[in-house]
């Protein structure tokens, strides 16, 4: 939905709330929200609603904690049974003459001298890949009492999870914390995550819902800032191609330190954010390292609907842009959201300002809505969208 020149339509956010058309008893709503939260299906709005609902109800809070613990219990692997079944399966395949030769790859029949290193590397890569799939598949397949054979899979290298452009996704970390990873982003953590500290590295954007554990602080490293929390909800945006790295706090408390600037430490309160210029090292050279450069600012609420926080709207698959954004800035957000690359062959078009939001729209619908306003033409070549007058 695009709003232009003060045209006021209905807010999508409010409409979807009203569409449910049902009023729940508080307890019913509690179980519904709780089951969604623990299953990882809750939206940020629902998480906040649950938080409010349980605010003065310690009993409910305890139920939530107990059920979260239950949820985290791993599923013991049935490795031996499955291995037996696999032998039967392989016999069956060989009887049916499905080409399958265990223990060697088909490619390995062709031996090329000097290629051994490559194969070794492919093998290492494969073990990494296997370990990652097991991780992505979730904690539920990992068993504490791993058989020796499975131990081979344990990867000394960090676990890295990444998203392509156009596909945000949700991850649960080993401590039960949830992370929504926006498009074109990467989250990395070591195998010993949670032993002393809970440390992750982030490139791109993530919304974190961190399980409270004061003994194991949770730290997010980005190129220009480190963010430290004990247990809270917040958003970190650190795309290398953006001008700013941002940390936005929804609730709890959060500490931001700027790399190479020891005096630049900020404690955020809920509904605050800091934006740190990505070229801060260059700025530091000019003005020195001691004077703080950054101040905390309030989060921006979408003015058409006072419940949408712009900084975290992407988690609910909303692309919201404010009045003072130019089309070319919006285009950068659309690139990530839709996995496209918008190119302006005419800069004047990109300099025009607009505000609005996209929720369900496809890229074609979004472009058509924008065309209503800006009267441009576009050409699609693969993932490239070229905008002309």
């Amino acid at each position: 939905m695009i709003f232009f020149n003060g045209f006021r339509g209905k807010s999508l956010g409010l409409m979807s709330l009203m569409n449910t058309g049902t009023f729940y008893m508080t307890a019913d709503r509690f179980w519904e929200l709780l089951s969604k939260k623990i299953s990882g299906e809750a939206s940020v709005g629902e998480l906040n609603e649950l938080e409010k609902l349980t605010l003065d109800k310690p009993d409910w809070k305890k139920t939530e904690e107990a059920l979260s613990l239950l949820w985290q219990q791993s599923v013991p692997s049935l490795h031996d049974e499955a291995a037996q079944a696999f032998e039967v399966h392989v016999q069956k395949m060989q009887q049916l003459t499905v080409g399958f030769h265990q223990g060697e790859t088909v490619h390995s029949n062709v031996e090329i001298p000097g290629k051994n290193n490559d194969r070794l590397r492919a093998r290492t890569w494969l073990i990494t890949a296997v370990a990652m799939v097991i991780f992505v598949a979730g904690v539920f397949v990992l068993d504490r009492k791993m058989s020796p054979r499975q131990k081979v899979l344990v990867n000394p290298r960090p676990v890295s999870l990444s998203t392509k452009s156009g596909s945000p996704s949700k991850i649960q970390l080993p401590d039960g914390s949830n992370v929504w990873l926006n498009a074109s982003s990467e989250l990395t953590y070591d195998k010993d995550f949670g032993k002393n500290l809970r440390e992750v590295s982030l490139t791109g954007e993530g919304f974190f819902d961190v399980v409270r554990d004061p003994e194991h602080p949770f730290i997010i490293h980005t190129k220009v800032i480190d963010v430290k929390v004990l247990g809270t909800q917040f958003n970190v945006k650190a795309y290398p191609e953006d001008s700013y790295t941002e940390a936005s706090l929804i609730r709890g408390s959060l500490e931001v330190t700027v790399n190479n600037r020891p005096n630049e430490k900020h404690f955020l309160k809920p509904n605050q954010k800091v934006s740190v210029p990505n070229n801060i090292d260059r700025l530091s050279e000019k003005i020195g390292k001691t004077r703080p450069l950054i101040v905390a600012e309030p989060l921006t609420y979408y003015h058409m609907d006072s419940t949408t926080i712009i900084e975290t709207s992407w988690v609910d698959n909303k692309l919201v842009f404010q009045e003072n954004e130019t089309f070319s800035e919006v285009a950068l957000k659309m690139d990530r959201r839709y996995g496209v690359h918008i190119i302006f062959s005419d800069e004047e078009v990109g300099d025009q300002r607009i505000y609005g939001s996209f929720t369900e729209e496809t890229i074609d619908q979004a472009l058509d809505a924008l065309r209503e306003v800006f009267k441009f033409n576009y050409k699609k070549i693969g993932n490239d969208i070229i905008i002309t007058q």
Partner: protein
Amino acid sequence: MLQQAIACFDDTQAYKQLFLLFYPSLVPFAVSIVKSKELAEEIVSDVFMTIWQKRQQLDKVDNLKFYLFTAVKNRCITHLNDSKNKTAINIDGVSVEFRSLYHDPEQKMISAEAINKIRTAIQDLPPRCQLIFKLVKEEGLKYKEVAELLHLSVKTIENQMSIAFRKIGTAINYKLHHLASVFSEN
């Protein structure tokens, strides 16, 4: 990643890992539809055979876990000669086994007694509700995926999940006093 290894390198070890990873989840799922362990094992084995035969296309599959569950479901329905019937799958008459409900002595927060209460609470749920809860909890499937697998609406999955949580939550509720004291020691 694993699927790329199979698709690009014809890697039998990766294939074995894939089998070991999903076989224990897929067989009980198939049992709940075809009501026979032997038939279920055969169906899952057939699905894995197709995976190997079509391995070159494997890296085009977006969500391998869901793909496997869907393939198993489809094959089950073919076996039941019921492919035209697109209503909810009948899963009555088969008990759903939960593997993650055990007492872990290292996990001091949930006592053996509480685990028993939880087991009983789950066993009292209707089979369909149990299966939905298992697919979400133990197989890590999304509501949307469970809905598609069982030909139900996402709203139904949401409702069934809140029923399951309510039953389990209520069952362990008296334990909360004990939990409260454990937490306050921190």
